[in-house]
């Protein structure tokens, strides 16, 4: 157990409080999608129902296309582990308007809470974790501003960093393993994309 005390739902709600037209959000599949949706189903959210490993790349393409907007990617540790290379790609491009928050419960939550590689190594089964440090990986990839957040007292600063600090900003937030209600946005991908573009560009 990671001993995490932060709860993802109130945290995400706090991060997204007062989100306006300046904030574009990509949410990874699974719990992150439901968390972001619970905070409010906005047209300027792109919540994914699939495409595991896509959120960071999608956030990068969006951030480069919309340099005057803030782009926030919110995703899980399992999803992040599937696209570690995309952190090097982000580092190479250095988008100053991109922030990435990984909600790290150390589990593949959506699929039955199997340990991901961010779980600590212990003497259990060989796939019970590796203690993988995502913030260290991001740093090693060339994202200088990368850190892990564990304490409730650090959340106000986390909010500021994710919403306004020049990027790329990378934050891992250690969160509790919880069984939460599914709060679902529309599922039709074409609809989600079209309403996002309509809100952002004025046409689908």
């Amino acid at each position: 157990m990671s001993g995490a005390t932060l709860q993802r739902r109130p945290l995400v709600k706090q991060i997204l409080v007062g989100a306006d037209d300046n904030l574009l959000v990509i949410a990874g599949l699974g719990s992150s999608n439901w968390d972001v949706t619970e905070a409010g189903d906005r047209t300027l959210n792109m919540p994914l129902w699939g495409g595991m490993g896509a959120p960071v790349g999608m956030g990068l393409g969006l951030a480069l296309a919309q340099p005057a907007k803030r782009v926030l990617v919110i995703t899980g540790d399992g999803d992040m582990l599937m696209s570690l290379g995309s952190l090097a790609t982000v580092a190479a491009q250095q988008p100053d308007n991109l922030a990435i928050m990984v909600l790290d419960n150390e589990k593949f939550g959506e699929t039955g809470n199997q340990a991901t590689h961010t779980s600590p190594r212990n003497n259990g089964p060989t796939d019970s974790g590796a203690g993988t440090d995502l913030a260290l990986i991001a740093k090693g990839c060339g994202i200088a501003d990368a850190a892990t957040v564990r304490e409730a007292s650090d959340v106000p600063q986390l909010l500021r960093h994710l919403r306004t600090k020049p990027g790329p900003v990378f934050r891992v937030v250690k969160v509790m393993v919880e069984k939460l209600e599914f709060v679902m946005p529309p599922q039709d991908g074409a609809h989600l994309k079209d309403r996002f573009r309509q809100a952002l560009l004025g046409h689908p």
Partner: protein
Amino acid sequence: MNAATSAEPSVDWRDDIFDVLQAHDIRQVCHVPDAGHARLIEHCQRSNAMRTIALTTEEEGIAIAAGAWLGGQRAVLLMQSSGVGNTINLLGLAKTLRFPFLTLITMRGDWGEFNSWQYPMGQGTPKVLEAMGVLLYSVDNAAEVRATVDAATRAAFNGGQAVAVLLRQKLIGIKDFGNKKA
């Protein structure tokens, strides 16, 4: 659009591709390099209108292209045929989100290939793309590159399709390290 419709083939077909991408306002050029794309990538790197994005794996290019489109920009993914295998699940995004997607693929394992390791994915490339609902354009003649890439780009961004142009190995030329087997 003059570059895209001009009848005169220019000196090098890679330059024709650059002209077409520029004429269609392609702004993000994602690539895992391939020798066949090298000259085009250099062109794009020198362009003020385009941003080149080196990837660690080709599937990133699909995610980036989707994000670019969400933000109102057009992207292209340059890769060799072996890279297609790395993209399969995320190619599904093109169908699910129905966003315009364009990829230009330099074929290996295709025409006189010397490297046996290139054949499985090279031969699988059209089938995989078709299975994922990607439209295929194919070109093996330098004089037809401009018109083919132009048509593919229109199908993608005007017609809203996911489109791949296979730049056949016959067009690119047979790569040969000049080594003799014992």
